[in-house]
């Protein structure tokens, strides 16, 4: 891309953001109105926000570092939650077989789940947007090739594709080498199985936008296609993309948890919520239900609130439903 300054390009998007009026404008917007009107959505937003915050700052929030051996006391292992007989206030949700505080492991686990979720959605989004823009703008054989691949991939479930990519990576790296790059492989696997939705949506919107006057004007003044695509068309197709991203964040977190539960996700040295559930599953029959159920509950609450947000965003941005 050329570094030539383009005065015609609408830089106004950033210039227009008056800090003083921003809050007022947000307050007046339709989106915020529909947000305020639904207590469930507000609660979902608050819960997602709190959980993400608590997970990000896990080392500060958690009462114990579950991976610091010095802080663990084997005498405190397999303690039930505080409201069950034998529970201690020191470990509100009980402890696992190594004396780890379940509450702390959940915070650390959620951190990894959310990290992988965001990273894979970001990866899928960038890949999907770029391919969708190219397919929609270029048309012709590029378009049909990309969309055929998308069709085919869409007929296979994401989890199967992710499993396969993981299996191939294990084949190439060996099980030991795989552990070192497990995070990368996982993000790649989930991202590659999710790009299609973005690509299809973006392509559809590009086909509509392509015929509009502002694009023709940009073409006439000789802007390079890359600039037209990313500066002019992309901002106009971002609405649906954001909706997909929100819903897919929930899906990505579920997929990560599932893969980790199956034992092919994150390495056991940095357990996510899925890994915690897998570990706890072994204790289900001996009556230590809290090792599984609390990480599971955390996962469901996180996914449910993100799903609720996604549902609301979809309806709020859909002009047909206004």
């Amino acid at each position: 891309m050329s570094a030539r300054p383009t005065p015609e390009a609408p830089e106004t998007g950033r210039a227009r953001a008056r800090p003083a009026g921003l809050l007022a404008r947000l307050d007046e917007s339709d989106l915020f109105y529909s947000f305020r009107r639904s207590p469930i959505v507000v609660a979902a937003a608050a819960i997602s926000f709190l959980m993400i915050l608590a997970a990000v700052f896990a080392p500060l929030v958690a009462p114990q570092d579950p991976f610091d051996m010095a802080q663990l006391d084997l005498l405190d292992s397999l303690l039930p939650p505080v409201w069950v007989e034998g529970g201690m206030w020191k470990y509100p949700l009980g402890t696992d077989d190594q004396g780890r505080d379940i509450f702390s492991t959940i915070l650390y686990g959620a951190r990894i789940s959310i990290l992988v979720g965001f990273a894979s959605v970001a990866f899928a989004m960038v890949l999907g947007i770029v391919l969708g823009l190219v397919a929609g703008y270029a048309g012709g054989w590029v378009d049909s090739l990309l969309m055929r691949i998308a069709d085919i991939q869409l007929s296979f479930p994401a989890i199967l594709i992710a499993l396969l990519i993981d299996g191939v990576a294990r084949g190439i790296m060996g099980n030991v080498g795989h552990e070192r790059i497990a995070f990368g492989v996982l993000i790649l696997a989930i991202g590659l199985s999710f790009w299609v939705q973005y690509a299809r949506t973006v392509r559809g919107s590009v086909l509509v936008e392509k015929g509009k006057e502002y694009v023709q004007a940009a073409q006439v003044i000789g802007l390079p296609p890359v600039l037209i695509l990313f500066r002019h068309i992309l901002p106009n197709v971002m609405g649906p993309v954001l909706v997909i991203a929100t819903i897919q964040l929930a899906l990505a977190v579920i997929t990560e948890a599932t893969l980790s539960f199956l034992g092919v996700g994150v390495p056991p040295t940095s357990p996510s919520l899925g890994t915690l559930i897998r570990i706890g599953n072994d204790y289900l029959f001996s009556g230590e239900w809290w090792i599984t159920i609390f990480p599971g509950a955390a996962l469901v609450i996180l996914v449910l609130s993100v799903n609720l947000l996604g549902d609301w965003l979809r309806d709020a941005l859909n002009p047909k439903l206004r």
Partner: protein
Amino acid sequence: MIWFVIKRLLQSVVVMAVVALIAFSMFRYLGDPVNQMVGVETSIEQREALRERLGLNEPVAVQFWLFLQRAAQFEFGISYQHRKAVSTLIAERLPATLELSAVSALMALLVGIPMGVYTALRREGFLARAFMTLSLIGVSLPTFLIGILLILFFGVMLQWLPTFGRGATVDIGGWSTGFLTADGLKALILPAITLAIFQMTLIVRLIRAEMLEVLRTDYIKFCKARGLKTRAIHFKHALKNTLVPVITIVGLQLGSVIAFAIITESVFQWPGMGLLFIQAVTEVDIPVMAAYLMLIAFVFVVINLVVDLLYYAVDPRLRVQAGAKG
């Protein structure tokens, strides 16, 4: 019509060829097949002889052709992990997965369709809202967690139902079925519910959306104007047209049921193909992975093909479009 079928068939062949190429590359380039088959004390000459016998010294294109021929007969060699022919392994596991998938799909349809229709007809009702909330929770509950909760409740706390394995099975001409023993049926309940819930949530939401769409159309208004009974309008006219897209989606879902069976089988230690596959992934058992991939791809391609052709047969509008183009 004939052109549509031919085009669709060609597309399926291309997909299978691509999948076969992936499976073949896995075989050929992930690890050395010879190393996997021989012991430590095998001499270099013996290894070379084996290499020659397996055709690994041929040009890659020839090898791919040989691979295709063997794949067509479902010959994928010996499993690295189980030391058994892959085709035998899969044949042993196939009945378990198919029985589980079929029962769960049936359950999902029998419960999901009435629930979906009800939520569409009584949109504002309390029960309808409860169903929709439940379905949202269902979407947010990962399959493996549903399984764990069911195990905890019915297996550990109430101790009513077995929580792992298939129970006693009866062998009928190489097909081991769990349908004929009380033990086998009991073992089937929890895994089938687990697998059904995931499909059910989708079916409920789909039926509701489609039904609402149909109820808004003109011909339903005309039905009302003609004074037909509400019951007749809903179940004779609206439901019929709702079911067309639903059949398609449910048909396509059948494929994902097999994929989600991997998770269910893993939770309940159900001895099906999914459990075999997940073990193959963790142990890098390439022949099993390749065979499973080819089999699943085949199932998917066939389902997609059948659904497309059925759709074409059921929906006259598509025929008109194709006729106008050709």
